[in-house]
Every structure is written in structure tokens, then in C-alpha cells.
């Protein structure tokens, strides 16, 4: 049955080359923890991806309840956490995932650095990776404000003050982020929401695609 379905689609779209390309990429011995336990360091990238997928999914569920405005944001998070079935788990996964992903991406970066995997011909992939690291930090910063509780608000105030202390363009950055050169309020919350939910995830998805395509093209760096 499944085979016939596959053939039906394959006849029309010739999907075998794509499918074989995905399925057949070889996993060399030196990155396979099943053969060398120390190769677990090669898992960090995959785990980063795994958590990012979880972040996308849990985040999508969070937006089913979350309301991005200063009157209701806090109440909606409180409701989600206290009343909604599994709300606590979903918010918990998103909250802890945000920390875990930083840990994992940090470890992944260190692995790539200390195995010298960023050297020719993989320079571009390193650059894309570092850009994604920045995006993840940005996601952490913007997401922190969204519950609109005390620590969220004041951490954001401090963050914006830091941005403001950048010479020349400081006020510009702050205004861009918070919607006003002075007030941290309703506009700030909606901007952070938009950045957290649309801008940065879109950028992250694009860069992840580029990251993976480059890996598939070049293959994983060889053994040391």
C-alpha cells in the first residue's frame, strides 16, 4: 500500500533522487557515538536542532493563549500556566528550552572550534552558525519580556539602557526596539512580540536551511 502510494507520487514527481539524497548521506565512523563514545560531542548540533524544533512547536501552542498587550499579557500567561491543561508543561518546555538551546549551541560552537571544523572549506558555514547564535540570543532577549511580569519588565529596561548607551546610534536602536525613545510600554511589548515570533524565527529558519544545505554539500569535517 505504502509502496504503491510512493510509486504513484514518484511517477509524477520523480522524488527518488531527493529522497535518496536525504536517506543516503553517509555518517562516518568518527562522528558516530555507537563506535567511539567520545563522538558524543558531535551530537550537540543535532540536539540544538531538536530543541529549536521543540521551541517552534511549543511557541506555536503558546500563541494560542498569549495576548500581546500590556493589560492582558500577564493575565494570559498566568491563566495559561495555572488553568489550561498542560499549559504549565508547554510553557515550561519553552522556558527551559530557551536556556537549553543556548547551552547546546554553546557546546556545539566549542566542538566545531576545537576540532578546527571551521577551516577551509567550511568558513561560510561557521559564519552562518555564529549569526544563528546571535539570533538565538535575540530570541532569548525578546522572549523574556513577553510575560510582562516584574523581572521581564526590568530586565528589558536594563537591556534597552545598554542599547541606548551605544554612541551615536544608541537612541535609534532603542527606539527601533521599544517603539519610543523614552517609554517602555505597550509599543515595546508588541514590537518584542513581533520580533520574537516573526522576524527572528524567520531569519533563523532561513539560516538553518543554509546551514544544513552547506553541510550536505560539503559533508561533515573528517577525523582529526
Amino acid at each position, binding site marked *: 500500500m505504502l509502496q504503491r502510494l510512493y510509486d504513484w507520487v514518484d511517477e509524477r514527481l520523480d522524488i527518488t533522487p531527493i529522497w535518496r539524497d536525504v536517506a543516503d548521506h553517509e555518517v562516518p*565512523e568518527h562522528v558516530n557515538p555507537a563506535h567511539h563514545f567520545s563522538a558524543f560531542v558531535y551530537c550537540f548540533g543535532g540536539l540544538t536542532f531538536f530543541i529549536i524544533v521543540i521551541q517552534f512547536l511549543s511557541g506555536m501552542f503558546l500563541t494560542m493563549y498569549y495576548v500581546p498587550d500590556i493589560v492582558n499579557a500577564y493575565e494570559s500567561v498566568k491563566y495559561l500556566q495555572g488553568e489550561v491543561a498542560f499549559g504549565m508543561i508547554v510553557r515550561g518546555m519553552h522556558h527551559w528550552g530557551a536556556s537549553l538551546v543556548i547551552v547546546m549551541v554553546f557546546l556545539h560552537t566549542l566542538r566545531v572550534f576545537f576540532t578546527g571544523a571551521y577551516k577551509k572549506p567550511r568558513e561560510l558555514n561557521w559564519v552562518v552558525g*555564529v549569526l544563528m547564535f546571535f539570533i538565538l540570543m535575540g530570541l532569548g532577549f525578546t522572549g523574556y519580556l513577553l510575560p510582562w511580569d516584574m523581572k521581564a519588565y526590568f530586565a528589558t529596561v536594563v537591556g534597552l539602557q545598554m542599547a541606548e548607551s551605544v554612541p551615536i546610534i544608541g537612541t535609534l536602536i532603542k527606539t527601533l526596539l521599544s517603539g519610543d525613545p523614552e517609554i517602555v510600554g505597550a509599543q515595546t511589548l508588541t514590537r518584542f512580540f513581533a520580533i520574537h515570533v516573526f522576524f527572528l524565527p524567520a531569519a533563523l529558519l532561513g539560516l538553518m536551511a543554509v546551514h544544513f544545505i552547506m553541510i550536505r554539500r560539503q559533508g561533515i569535517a573528517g577525523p582529526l
Partner: protein
Amino acid sequence: MQRGKGMKFVGDSRVPASGRKPNIPKDYSEYPGKTEAFFPNFLLKEWLVGAVFLVGYLCLTAAHPSPLERLADPTDSGYIPLPDWYFLFLYQLLKYEFVSGDYVVIGIVIIPALSFGALLLAPWLDRGPERRASRRPIASGMMLLAVLAVVYLTWEAVENHDWEAAAEQGEMLDDEAAELAEQVDTEHEGYQIYSDQGCIACHGDQLQGSGAAGPSLFDTQYDVDTIKNIAVEGIGEMPPGLFEGTDEELQILAEYIASGGGAQEGESGEDGASAEDAAGEETTEESDEE
């Protein structure tokens, strides 16, 4: 693959009608070492690791519900802010003398730009062909130093933060605690005097006031001395000479009322702030409403 004329396509599409690639896995015996296929061999193992990881992750989530403090209150300027932990290193860095204040440009632009710039451009800074970390000591050393610096700064920030005060200042009161905070301490000596001296008749058994007869005293803006005065001499529509006890009792009563009926300090952030704003006005919010 067939080429040129005589090629057949599926309908009017560009998909060739015959000679399509057969769906069989590659042969890995020619590959070096124990290379294996991603699908299904390696993916299954990855899946196992992923499942174990997910279980640990879920346990973490169940054991530590994500925190939520009380509603943001921009007027509470006494709040000690703290960013999420992965920004602590930067937060801590900016506390040092030569990277903050007049020199903030060094802390906010130069140091981050240099370190993150170096990270971004690492492939061009470390161009040698050698990959082993031990054979390129400068690059590895710099990275180690950077990691140590980040760890140290984060550690310092955690050490310097007053976690107890932080936990208290943001505490979200559950319903019970919130109610307690609204309620006055009726066991208090002051409450005894309050009811004995008859204040209770006009200001209510919870200091909540009783409509026209007397305003709420729950968050009165007056200080102890003024309250002592009012109790003896009256104010506005409140007649003088109501208090008939000793000076000691007067003191206790006034302190009791000034402290909001011995109510627990809780959601005082908001109240305190609005009290400051309204200080000097004659009436409380409650009496305005009436």
C-alpha cells in the same frame, strides 16, 4: 539516463516517463571505516538519544515550573533587575569601573564588538591548515580565555546578586496571601484599642471605612504623629475628643493604623507608589469615591 530525442515524459510535465532512479540504498562497503547510512541506521540511534534527552527535559519541566513574578509595575523603582542568565556576563562586565560610566563605550561597544567580531571571523583569523586544537595554541588559548572569562563573569554576577531579596521583590501572591495582605491583624494590640476607643464604629472592622460615617484607614497617607493628632482633635467631619486612652495606647493605635492594620507587607509596591503620588492630598482614594 536517456537523452535527446525519443525521451518520454509524464503528461506534459518535465518528469521523465522511464529510466527513473531506482529507490535502493547506497552501498557503504566501499566507504572508509564503519560508515553507515543516515537513514534508517543512524537516525534510529539518534532517535534513541533524542528520546532520552526529551525524558530528561520533561522531568526538568515538571520539577521546576517556569517562574512568573507579579505583574510589571514600572513605578517600582526599587526593583533590582536581572537579565536571563546567558546575558549575565555582559551585565556583570558593565559593572566594572573602566567599562562603565564615562568609559561605557569600551564595555558596550569595543569589548563585545572585538570578541564577537573575532568569533564571527575566526576562520580568517586562524588560517593555518592545522585542525588539532593543540597544534594551534594561539587560537585555542584565546578561545579558552574567552570561555573562562564568560564563565567567571557569569559566576560573579550570580554571587553578587541578592537572590533572597530578588525572590521577595517579585513574589507573586497567591489568592490566600493576597487576601491576608488585604486583611488587618485583629490579634494586634492596636486593634483592641481601635475597637475599644470606638474608631471601629465609623472606620469599620477592617479599617475599610463605612461609607459616609468614616473613610478607609487601610492605606491612609498620614504618618503616626498626624494620626495621633487626628484621633484626639478630629479632622473635618470627624469630631474631636474621640480618643480617651493613655498616651501609650495612642502611640500603639497610631502606629497600628499607619502600618495599614499590621497587614503583611505584600503588594505594597503599587500601594506605596500611589501613596507617594497622592501624598499631601487631604483625601484617600476611597473617600474620593464616596
